[in-house]
């Protein structure tokens, strides 16, 4: 009888601890972007933000014309497509030799949104439909949803921003993989208050 009581209370204690961990994590992160996930969704236990770029070759080759976008912002199939059409890269010529291209792609695929243990990568993945391949981070449903309150006059009509592709014009710590709402300042407009 004693043994049974002891094991029952051990199980109860275990359940309380587990629940506490889930709920506290959920609370800590749900305020940041509003779309709360179910408490059993383990993706909320992933690291927040997106992995910062850690590869020197990628920083050099993919950071010369714009910030080096963290690979965790797009899935594998988008990167594979992009790396196959670098001669016509959004109106630019970004062509590379095969050796460099392959080395970059290996890094990108190891860190793409479908692999990354980061919360924003998971959310981008969840927003995408399986049958289409998006070309741009700024065209993912997750991105569009997050920016639907940012008016055109702050972006396209703002000579200091010009395009949503210019993440680091507004997100002060974009290069660190940090896109939190309290680290945004739009040029000529100021800090963002929701």
């Amino acid at each position: 009888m004693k043994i049974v009581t002891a094991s029952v209370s051990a199980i109860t204690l275990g359940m309380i601890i587990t629940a506490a961990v889930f709920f506290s994590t959920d609370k800590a992160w749900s305020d940041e972007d509003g779309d709360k996930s179910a408490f059993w969704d383990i993706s909320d236990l992933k690291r927040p933000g997106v992995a910062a770029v850690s590869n020197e070759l990628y920083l050099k080759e993919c950071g010369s014309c714009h910030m080096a976008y963290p690979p965790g912002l797009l899935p594998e199939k988008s990167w594979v497509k992009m790396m196959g059409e670098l001669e016509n890269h959004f109106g630019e010529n970004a062509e590379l030799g095969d050796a460099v291209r392959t080395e970059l792609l290996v890094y990108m695929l190891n860190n793409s949104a479908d692999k990354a243990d980061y919360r924003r990568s998971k959310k981008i993945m969840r927003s995408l439909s399986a049958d289409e391949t998006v070309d741009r981070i700024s065209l993912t449903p997750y991105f569009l949803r997050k920016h639907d309150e940012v008016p055109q006059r702050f972006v396209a009509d703002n000579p200091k921003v010009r395009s949503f592709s210019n993440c680091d014009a507004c997100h002060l710590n974009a290069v660190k993989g940090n896109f939190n709402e309290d680290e945004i300042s739009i040029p000529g407009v100021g800090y963002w208050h929701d």
Partner: protein
Amino acid sequence: MSKDLGNGIYAEAIMVHRAEIKAKFVNRYSAILVGGLMMLLPACASANESGATIDNVLAGYQSAGAVEFSRQRGEALWAKQVVGAEPFSSRSCTSCHGADLKKPGQHVQTKKTIAPMSAAANSQRYQTEADIEKWFLRNCKWTFGRECSAQEKGDFLTYLRMQ
């Protein structure tokens, strides 16, 4: 360049990548890579004098048939305006690099700052043949819609190094 995603380097890259995940080779590779880089470090820790690189590249152009290089021709071609597709209907090397080589330029589309092209004003310039050729290829195609000849590239470098 191959656009067939199922073949060539893509298949290879994806295979490498999957194998890496499976066997956790990534760590081993980076250990080897870091080791290799450490050994290379003393050789490339600081920017090299660009003169020797440019001399080599120019010698290569000459053996490819280029005649004597001209700073004036380089300067004229640098500023030459060419009709291109909208929204960049008028294109030249100055579209992104600007006319004053000692000053930073700005990428015409992304607005990212581009460090000065003058070798004298910018010690990071013209470090490797591979980078010089990579950018000549891209930028000549974007600006002129074609690759530049050895003669034209030599004239450009002769102009750029003298600024």
